[in-house]
Protein backbone atom coordinates (compact mmCIF):
# COMPACT_ATOMS: atom_id res chain seq x y z
CA UNK A 1 0.00 0.00 0.00
CA UNK A 2 1.20 3.49 -0.68
CA UNK A 3 -0.81 5.42 1.92
CA UNK A 4 -0.78 5.35 5.71
CA UNK A 5 -3.95 3.71 6.87
CA UNK A 6 -6.63 4.80 9.33
CA UNK A 7 -8.13 2.97 12.28
CA UNK A 8 -11.05 1.56 10.31
CA UNK A 9 -8.91 0.33 7.45
CA UNK A 10 -6.59 -1.29 9.96
CA UNK A 11 -9.54 -2.98 11.66
CA UNK A 12 -10.65 -4.21 8.25
CA UNK A 13 -7.20 -5.68 7.64
CA UNK A 14 -7.20 -7.49 11.01
CA UNK A 15 -10.68 -8.85 10.29
CA UNK A 16 -9.56 -10.16 6.92
CA UNK A 17 -6.57 -11.92 8.51
CA UNK A 18 -8.66 -13.89 11.02
CA UNK A 19 -9.14 -17.44 9.77
CA UNK A 20 -12.68 -18.64 9.09
CA UNK A 21 -14.25 -20.53 11.97
CA UNK A 22 -12.08 -18.89 14.63
CA UNK A 23 -13.05 -18.18 18.23
CA UNK A 24 -12.00 -14.61 18.95
CA UNK A 25 -11.89 -12.14 21.84
CA UNK A 26 -11.73 -8.46 20.94
CA UNK A 27 -10.36 -6.13 23.60
CA UNK A 28 -11.85 -2.77 24.49
CA UNK A 29 -11.11 0.28 22.33
CA UNK A 30 -9.62 0.04 18.85
CA UNK A 31 -9.90 -3.80 18.68
CA UNK A 32 -13.68 -3.53 19.03
CA UNK A 33 -13.74 -1.94 15.55
CA UNK A 34 -12.68 -5.30 14.09
CA UNK A 35 -16.17 -6.72 14.71
CA UNK A 36 -17.56 -4.24 12.14
CA UNK A 37 -15.63 -6.00 9.38
CA UNK A 38 -16.09 -9.69 10.20
CA UNK A 39 -18.23 -11.27 7.49
CA UNK A 40 -20.90 -13.97 7.96
CA UNK A 41 -18.88 -16.20 5.60
CA UNK A 42 -15.99 -16.14 8.08
CA UNK A 43 -18.25 -17.70 10.73
CA UNK A 44 -16.31 -16.13 13.62
CA UNK A 45 -17.55 -16.73 17.18
CA UNK A 46 -16.90 -13.85 19.57
CA UNK A 47 -16.10 -14.52 23.21
CA UNK A 48 -16.63 -12.00 25.99
CA UNK A 49 -14.84 -12.76 29.24
CA UNK A 50 -17.84 -11.96 31.41
CA UNK A 51 -19.30 -15.28 30.35
CA UNK A 52 -20.53 -15.63 26.79
CA UNK A 53 -19.71 -17.12 23.40
CA UNK A 54 -21.69 -16.06 20.36
CA UNK A 55 -21.87 -12.39 21.19
CA UNK A 56 -23.71 -10.27 18.63
CA UNK A 57 -23.57 -6.55 17.82
CA UNK A 58 -24.15 -3.74 20.33
CA UNK A 59 -27.79 -3.64 21.43
CA UNK A 60 -29.98 -0.81 20.15
CA UNK A 61 -33.24 0.55 21.55
CA UNK A 62 -35.54 -2.23 22.80
CA UNK A 63 -32.77 -4.81 22.55
CA UNK A 64 -30.97 -3.27 25.53
CA UNK A 65 -31.00 -5.70 28.47
CA UNK A 66 -28.85 -4.95 31.48
CA UNK A 67 -28.24 -8.67 32.06
CA UNK A 68 -26.60 -8.94 28.64
CA UNK A 69 -23.41 -6.88 28.46
CA UNK A 70 -19.90 -7.22 27.11
CA UNK A 71 -16.60 -6.89 28.96
CA UNK A 72 -16.76 -3.12 28.46
CA UNK A 73 -20.18 -3.23 30.20
CA UNK A 74 -21.91 -2.14 26.99
CA UNK A 75 -25.28 -3.84 26.27
CA UNK A 76 -24.89 -6.35 23.45
CA UNK A 77 -27.02 -8.99 21.73
CA UNK A 78 -26.83 -12.77 21.41
CA UNK A 79 -26.53 -14.67 18.15
CA UNK A 80 -28.01 -18.12 17.40
CA UNK A 81 -25.71 -20.70 18.98
CA UNK A 82 -24.71 -18.41 21.84
CA UNK A 83 -23.91 -19.86 25.26
CA UNK A 84 -23.46 -18.49 28.77
CA UNK A 85 -21.09 -19.74 31.46
CA UNK A 86 -19.68 -18.54 34.75
CA UNK A 87 -16.52 -16.50 35.17
CA UNK A 88 -14.17 -19.37 36.05
CA UNK A 89 -15.27 -21.30 32.96
CA UNK A 90 -14.95 -18.19 30.84
CA UNK A 91 -11.34 -17.66 31.88
CA UNK A 92 -10.65 -21.38 31.52
CA UNK A 93 -11.70 -20.96 27.88
CA UNK A 94 -9.09 -18.25 27.63
CA UNK A 95 -6.29 -19.66 29.79
CA UNK A 96 -6.81 -23.16 28.44
CA UNK A 97 -5.81 -22.04 24.95
CA UNK A 98 -9.22 -22.58 23.38
CA UNK A 99 -9.44 -19.14 21.80
CA UNK A 100 -7.72 -18.77 18.44
CA UNK A 101 -7.14 -15.04 18.47
CA UNK A 102 -7.27 -12.19 20.92
CA UNK A 103 -6.91 -8.62 19.69
CA UNK A 104 -5.68 -6.04 22.20
CA UNK A 105 -4.55 -2.44 22.40
CA UNK A 106 -1.12 -1.58 23.82
CA UNK A 107 1.07 1.16 25.28
CA UNK A 108 4.17 -0.78 24.24
CA UNK A 109 5.21 -4.13 22.77
CA UNK A 110 8.76 -5.46 23.04
CA UNK A 111 10.75 -7.11 20.27
CA UNK A 112 10.19 -10.46 21.99
CA UNK A 113 6.44 -9.99 22.29
CA UNK A 114 6.15 -8.68 25.84
CA UNK A 115 3.00 -6.61 26.13
CA UNK A 116 2.41 -3.48 28.24
CA UNK A 117 -1.19 -2.31 28.20
CA UNK A 118 -2.55 -2.17 31.74
CA UNK A 119 -0.67 0.41 33.76
CA UNK A 120 1.34 3.52 32.94
CA UNK A 121 3.39 3.04 36.09
CA UNK A 122 2.56 6.57 37.24
CA UNK A 123 2.95 6.56 41.04
CA UNK A 124 -0.40 8.26 41.70
CA UNK A 125 -2.43 6.07 39.33
CA UNK A 126 -4.98 3.71 40.85
CA UNK A 127 -4.04 0.33 39.36
CA UNK A 128 -6.72 -1.69 37.57
CA UNK A 129 -6.02 -4.81 35.54
CA UNK A 130 -9.35 -6.46 34.70
CA UNK A 131 -8.88 -9.34 32.27
CA UNK A 132 -5.86 -7.83 30.49
CA UNK A 133 -3.28 -10.30 31.85
CA UNK A 134 -5.54 -13.29 31.23
CA UNK A 135 -6.19 -12.20 27.64
CA UNK A 136 -2.48 -11.70 27.02
CA UNK A 137 -1.55 -15.20 28.17
CA UNK A 138 -4.48 -17.23 26.94
CA UNK A 139 -5.16 -17.07 23.23
CA UNK A 140 -3.17 -19.04 20.62
CA UNK A 141 -2.44 -15.78 18.81
CA UNK A 142 -2.35 -12.35 20.41
CA UNK A 143 -2.63 -9.49 17.94
CA UNK A 144 -2.01 -5.92 19.01
CA UNK A 145 -3.51 -2.86 17.33
CA UNK A 146 -1.84 0.45 18.08
CA UNK A 147 -0.33 3.55 16.52
CA UNK A 148 3.36 2.88 15.95
CA UNK A 149 4.62 6.16 17.36
CA UNK A 150 3.65 8.23 20.38
CA UNK A 151 2.62 11.84 19.84
CA UNK A 152 6.22 12.88 20.38
CA UNK A 153 7.57 10.38 17.88
CA UNK A 154 8.75 7.58 20.17
CA UNK A 155 8.30 4.06 18.81
CA UNK A 156 5.89 1.91 20.85
CA UNK A 157 7.58 -1.21 19.49
CA UNK A 158 10.63 -1.24 21.76
CA UNK A 159 13.63 -3.45 22.62
CA UNK A 160 12.23 -3.81 26.15
CA UNK A 161 9.04 -2.41 27.67
CA UNK A 162 9.54 0.51 30.05
CA UNK A 163 5.90 0.38 31.22
CA UNK A 164 4.86 -2.43 33.60
CA UNK A 165 4.21 -5.55 31.50
CA UNK A 166 0.89 -7.33 31.14
CA UNK A 167 2.40 -10.56 29.85
CA UNK A 168 5.73 -11.87 28.57
CA UNK A 169 6.42 -13.35 25.11
CA UNK A 170 2.73 -13.29 24.28
CA UNK A 171 2.22 -10.98 21.28
CA UNK A 172 2.54 -12.64 17.87
CA UNK A 173 1.57 -9.82 15.55
CA UNK A 174 1.32 -6.01 15.69
CA UNK A 175 -0.98 -4.01 13.43
CA UNK A 176 -0.06 -0.33 13.28
CA UNK A 177 -0.89 2.65 11.08
CA UNK A 178 2.61 2.42 9.53
CA UNK A 179 3.20 -1.31 9.16
CA UNK A 180 2.29 -4.83 10.23
CA UNK A 181 4.99 -6.57 12.30
CA UNK A 182 5.35 -10.27 13.02
CA UNK A 183 7.14 -11.39 16.19
CA UNK A 184 9.11 -14.46 15.11
CA UNK A 185 11.86 -16.55 16.64
CA UNK A 186 14.29 -14.76 14.29
CA UNK A 187 13.14 -11.33 15.44
CA UNK A 188 10.68 -8.68 14.30
CA UNK A 189 9.65 -9.05 10.67
CA UNK A 190 7.85 -6.35 8.70
CA UNK A 191 5.01 -8.00 6.80
CA UNK A 192 3.90 -4.87 4.98
CA UNK A 193 4.21 -1.09 5.25
CA UNK A 194 1.70 1.68 4.61
CA UNK A 195 3.00 4.83 2.92
CA UNK A 196 6.51 4.26 4.23
CA UNK A 197 9.43 1.87 3.81
CA UNK A 198 11.24 -0.48 6.13
CA UNK A 199 14.33 1.77 5.82
CA UNK A 200 12.37 4.87 6.85
CA UNK A 201 10.89 3.02 9.81
CA UNK A 202 14.25 1.57 10.84
CA UNK A 203 15.72 5.10 10.99
CA UNK A 204 13.12 5.96 13.67
CA UNK A 205 13.21 2.71 15.65
CA UNK A 206 15.72 0.99 17.92
CA UNK A 207 14.29 -2.47 17.29
CA UNK A 208 16.08 -4.27 14.45
CA UNK A 209 13.59 -4.86 11.63
CA UNK A 210 13.77 -7.86 9.32
CA UNK A 211 12.17 -7.84 5.87
CA UNK A 212 9.18 -10.02 5.02
CA UNK A 213 10.07 -13.60 4.16
Amino acid at each position, binding site marked *: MSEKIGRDELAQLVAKDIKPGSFVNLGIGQPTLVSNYLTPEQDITLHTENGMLGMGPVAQGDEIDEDLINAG*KIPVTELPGAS*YFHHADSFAIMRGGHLDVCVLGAFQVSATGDLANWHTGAPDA*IPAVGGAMDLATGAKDVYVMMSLFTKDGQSKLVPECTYPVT*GVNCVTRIYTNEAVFLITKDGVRVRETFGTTIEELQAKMEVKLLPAE
Partner: protein
Amino acid sequence: MLNIAQTAQEAVAGVHDGATVLIGGFGNAGQPMELIDALLECGAKDLTVVNNNAGQADAGLALLIKERRVKKIICSFPRQSDSWHFDTAYRAGEIELELVPQGNLAERIRAAGAGIGGFFTPTGYGTMLAEGKETREIDGRGYVYETPIHADFALIKALKSDKTGNLVYRKTARNFGPIMAAAAKKSIVQVSEIVETGQLDPEVVVTPGIYVDTVVKIAAPATAAAEQKVSK
Protein backbone atom coordinates in the same frame (compact mmCIF):
# COMPACT_ATOMS: atom_id res chain seq x y z
CA MET B 1 -32.25 -27.02 54.78
CA LEU B 2 -32.90 -23.88 52.78
CA ASN B 3 -33.77 -20.73 54.68
CA ILE B 4 -36.30 -18.65 52.79
CA ALA B 5 -36.05 -15.13 54.16
CA GLN B 6 -38.95 -12.72 53.91
CA THR B 7 -36.84 -9.61 53.46
CA ALA B 8 -33.36 -8.72 52.31
CA GLN B 9 -32.65 -7.38 55.84
CA GLU B 10 -33.50 -10.76 57.36
CA ALA B 11 -31.38 -12.52 54.73
CA VAL B 12 -28.18 -10.62 55.62
CA ALA B 13 -28.83 -10.28 59.37
CA GLY B 14 -26.05 -12.76 60.24
CA VAL B 15 -23.26 -10.86 58.49
CA HIS B 16 -20.89 -9.83 61.27
CA ASP B 17 -18.16 -7.23 61.67
CA GLY B 18 -14.89 -8.32 60.10
CA ALA B 19 -16.55 -10.84 57.76
CA THR B 20 -15.21 -11.67 54.31
CA VAL B 21 -18.05 -11.23 51.83
CA LEU B 22 -18.06 -12.29 48.20
CA ILE B 23 -20.38 -10.05 46.19
CA GLY B 24 -21.49 -11.21 42.76
CA GLY B 25 -21.87 -9.09 39.66
CA PHE B 26 -19.83 -7.70 36.82
CA GLY B 27 -20.61 -4.02 36.74
CA ASN B 28 -24.33 -3.95 37.50
CA ALA B 29 -25.16 -7.25 35.76
CA GLY B 30 -25.77 -9.77 38.52
CA GLN B 31 -25.02 -7.28 41.30
CA PRO B 32 -27.35 -8.12 44.25
CA MET B 33 -28.29 -4.51 44.82
CA GLU B 34 -31.02 -5.12 47.43
CA LEU B 35 -28.82 -7.43 49.50
CA ILE B 36 -26.05 -4.84 49.47
CA ASP B 37 -28.50 -2.13 50.53
CA ALA B 38 -29.61 -4.38 53.38
CA LEU B 39 -25.98 -4.96 54.37
CA LEU B 40 -25.55 -1.22 54.51
CA GLU B 41 -28.55 -0.97 56.83
CA CYS B 42 -27.49 -3.86 59.06
CA GLY B 43 -24.35 -1.96 60.02
CA ALA B 44 -21.68 -4.67 59.66
CA LYS B 45 -18.25 -3.04 59.37
CA ASP B 46 -14.55 -3.84 58.80
CA LEU B 47 -15.61 -6.06 55.92
CA THR B 48 -13.32 -7.64 53.37
CA VAL B 49 -15.25 -7.55 50.11
CA VAL B 50 -14.48 -9.57 46.99
CA ASN B 51 -16.03 -8.30 43.75
CA ASN B 52 -14.79 -7.74 40.22
CA ASN B 53 -15.06 -3.97 40.65
CA ALA B 54 -15.07 -1.48 43.49
CA GLY B 55 -18.53 -0.03 43.08
CA GLN B 56 -20.13 2.26 40.54
CA ALA B 57 -21.77 5.64 41.01
CA ASP B 58 -23.90 6.07 44.16
CA ALA B 59 -25.39 2.62 44.54
CA GLY B 60 -24.68 -0.81 45.97
CA LEU B 61 -21.05 -1.56 46.77
CA ALA B 62 -20.06 2.07 46.12
CA LEU B 63 -22.20 3.14 49.11
CA LEU B 64 -20.67 0.50 51.40
CA ILE B 65 -17.29 1.96 50.51
CA LYS B 66 -18.52 5.53 50.92
CA GLU B 67 -19.68 4.67 54.47
CA ARG B 68 -16.20 3.18 55.17
CA ARG B 69 -17.63 -0.23 56.00
CA VAL B 70 -15.13 -2.00 53.76
CA LYS B 71 -11.60 -2.22 55.16
CA LYS B 72 -10.24 -4.24 52.26
CA ILE B 73 -11.36 -4.96 48.73
CA ILE B 74 -10.09 -7.80 46.55
CA CYS B 75 -10.94 -7.03 42.92
CA SER B 76 -9.61 -6.85 39.37
CA PHE B 77 -10.84 -3.48 38.17
CA PRO B 78 -11.43 -0.80 40.80
CA ARG B 79 -10.84 2.25 38.61
CA GLN B 80 -13.82 3.30 36.56
CA SER B 81 -15.15 6.63 35.39
CA ASP B 82 -17.79 6.50 38.14
CA SER B 83 -15.86 4.81 40.97
CA TRP B 84 -15.48 8.09 42.85
CA HIS B 85 -16.25 6.66 46.30
CA PHE B 86 -13.54 4.04 45.95
CA ASP B 87 -11.10 6.59 44.51
CA THR B 88 -11.63 8.93 47.47
CA ALA B 89 -11.30 6.17 50.08
CA TYR B 90 -8.20 4.75 48.37
CA ARG B 91 -6.43 8.09 48.06
CA ALA B 92 -7.21 8.81 51.71
CA GLY B 93 -5.60 5.50 52.67
CA GLU B 94 -8.90 4.32 54.12
CA ILE B 95 -9.30 1.14 52.12
CA GLU B 96 -6.84 -1.62 51.36
CA LEU B 97 -6.74 -2.90 47.78
CA GLU B 98 -5.64 -6.36 46.64
CA LEU B 99 -5.56 -6.24 42.85
CA VAL B 100 -5.97 -9.62 41.13
CA PRO B 101 -6.19 -10.37 37.40
CA GLN B 102 -9.80 -11.22 36.65
CA GLY B 103 -9.26 -14.85 35.66
CA ASN B 104 -7.08 -15.45 38.71
CA LEU B 105 -9.77 -13.87 40.87
CA ALA B 106 -12.38 -16.23 39.43
CA GLU B 107 -10.13 -19.28 39.74
CA ARG B 108 -9.14 -18.42 43.33
CA ILE B 109 -12.82 -18.27 44.24
CA ARG B 110 -13.50 -21.51 42.34
CA ALA B 111 -10.57 -23.19 44.09
CA ALA B 112 -11.97 -22.30 47.51
CA GLY B 113 -15.30 -23.89 46.69
CA ALA B 114 -13.63 -26.94 45.18
CA GLY B 115 -11.27 -27.61 48.09
CA ILE B 116 -8.13 -26.83 46.12
CA GLY B 117 -5.20 -25.57 48.20
CA GLY B 118 -3.83 -23.34 45.45
CA PHE B 119 -2.79 -23.57 41.81
CA PHE B 120 -0.13 -22.49 39.32
CA THR B 121 -1.39 -20.14 36.62
CA PRO B 122 0.45 -18.50 33.70
CA THR B 123 -1.61 -15.33 34.13
CA GLY B 124 0.43 -12.55 35.68
CA TYR B 125 3.76 -14.37 35.38
CA GLY B 126 6.61 -11.89 34.97
CA THR B 127 4.43 -8.93 35.97
CA MET B 128 4.17 -6.61 38.99
CA LEU B 129 1.20 -8.57 40.24
CA ALA B 130 3.32 -11.70 40.67
CA GLU B 131 5.99 -9.97 42.77
CA GLY B 132 6.71 -11.89 45.96
CA LYS B 133 4.74 -14.91 44.81
CA GLU B 134 6.08 -18.41 44.30
CA THR B 135 6.74 -19.24 40.64
CA ARG B 136 7.53 -22.46 38.84
CA GLU B 137 8.52 -23.43 35.33
CA ILE B 138 6.35 -26.23 33.98
CA ASP B 139 7.11 -27.64 30.53
CA GLY B 140 9.09 -24.53 29.66
CA ARG B 141 6.44 -22.03 30.67
CA GLY B 142 6.36 -19.74 33.71
CA TYR B 143 3.55 -20.04 36.27
CA VAL B 144 2.60 -18.17 39.45
CA TYR B 145 1.18 -19.80 42.56
CA GLU B 146 -2.20 -18.41 43.61
CA THR B 147 -4.20 -19.27 46.72
CA PRO B 148 -7.92 -19.87 47.22
CA ILE B 149 -10.21 -17.06 48.43
CA HIS B 150 -12.45 -18.44 51.18
CA ALA B 151 -15.27 -16.35 52.54
CA ASP B 152 -17.80 -16.23 55.33
CA PHE B 153 -20.65 -15.08 53.11
CA ALA B 154 -21.59 -14.74 49.46
CA LEU B 155 -24.23 -12.27 48.34
CA ILE B 156 -25.41 -13.15 44.86
CA LYS B 157 -28.27 -12.60 42.47
CA ALA B 158 -29.95 -15.30 40.42
CA LEU B 159 -33.10 -15.41 38.35
CA LYS B 160 -34.95 -18.25 40.08
CA SER B 161 -34.62 -20.64 42.97
CA ASP B 162 -36.68 -23.63 43.95
CA LYS B 163 -37.32 -24.50 47.58
CA THR B 164 -34.20 -26.64 47.76
CA GLY B 165 -32.03 -23.71 46.64
CA ASN B 166 -31.31 -24.90 43.11
CA LEU B 167 -30.55 -21.82 41.03
CA VAL B 168 -30.80 -20.65 37.45
CA TYR B 169 -29.36 -17.36 36.26
CA ARG B 170 -30.00 -14.97 33.40
CA LYS B 171 -27.57 -14.25 30.54
CA THR B 172 -24.28 -12.57 31.50
CA ALA B 173 -25.65 -11.80 34.98
CA ARG B 174 -24.49 -15.32 35.89
CA ASN B 175 -20.82 -14.23 35.98
CA PHE B 176 -19.38 -14.86 39.49
CA GLY B 177 -22.59 -16.27 41.05
CA PRO B 178 -21.99 -20.03 40.76
CA ILE B 179 -18.37 -19.98 42.00
CA MET B 180 -19.14 -17.56 44.84
CA ALA B 181 -22.06 -19.72 46.00
CA ALA B 182 -19.66 -22.64 46.32
CA ALA B 183 -16.82 -20.70 47.97
CA ALA B 184 -18.66 -19.15 50.93
CA LYS B 185 -19.63 -20.76 54.23
CA LYS B 186 -23.05 -19.14 53.87
CA SER B 187 -24.52 -18.18 50.52
CA ILE B 188 -27.31 -15.65 50.44
CA VAL B 189 -29.13 -15.31 47.15
CA GLN B 190 -31.68 -12.81 45.90
CA VAL B 191 -33.95 -14.14 43.18
CA SER B 192 -36.81 -12.73 41.15
CA GLU B 193 -38.90 -15.84 41.71
CA ILE B 194 -39.04 -18.84 44.07
CA VAL B 195 -40.75 -21.89 42.57
CA GLU B 196 -41.84 -25.16 44.13
CA THR B 197 -39.26 -27.92 44.31
CA GLY B 198 -39.59 -30.01 41.17
CA GLN B 199 -40.47 -27.10 38.94
CA LEU B 200 -36.90 -26.48 37.77
CA ASP B 201 -35.66 -28.91 35.15
CA PRO B 202 -32.69 -30.67 36.84
CA GLU B 203 -30.87 -30.54 33.49
CA VAL B 204 -30.81 -26.75 33.51
CA VAL B 205 -29.96 -26.12 37.17
CA VAL B 206 -26.69 -24.14 37.21
CA THR B 207 -26.02 -23.95 40.95
CA PRO B 208 -27.18 -27.02 42.89
CA GLY B 209 -28.95 -26.21 46.17
CA ILE B 210 -26.19 -27.76 48.28
CA TYR B 211 -24.29 -24.48 47.85
CA VAL B 212 -27.18 -22.24 48.86
CA ASP B 213 -28.20 -21.37 52.43
CA THR B 214 -30.64 -18.48 52.18
CA VAL B 215 -32.82 -17.16 49.40
CA VAL B 216 -35.00 -14.08 49.36
CA LYS B 217 -37.41 -13.05 46.68
CA ILE B 218 -36.92 -9.51 45.38
CA ALA B 219 -39.70 -9.32 42.83
CA ALA B 220 -38.51 -6.29 40.90
CA PRO B 221 -34.79 -5.87 41.49
CA ALA B 222 -33.40 -2.41 40.94
CA THR B 223 -32.06 -1.66 37.52
CA ALA B 224 -28.82 0.20 37.05
CA ALA B 225 -28.98 3.27 39.27
CA ALA B 226 -26.68 5.14 36.97
CA GLU B 227 -25.92 4.95 33.31
CA GLN B 228 -22.86 2.75 32.85
CA LYS B 229 -19.85 4.34 31.25
CA VAL B 230 -17.35 2.36 29.23
CA SER B 231 -15.16 0.58 31.69
CA LYS B 232 -13.71 -2.82 32.30
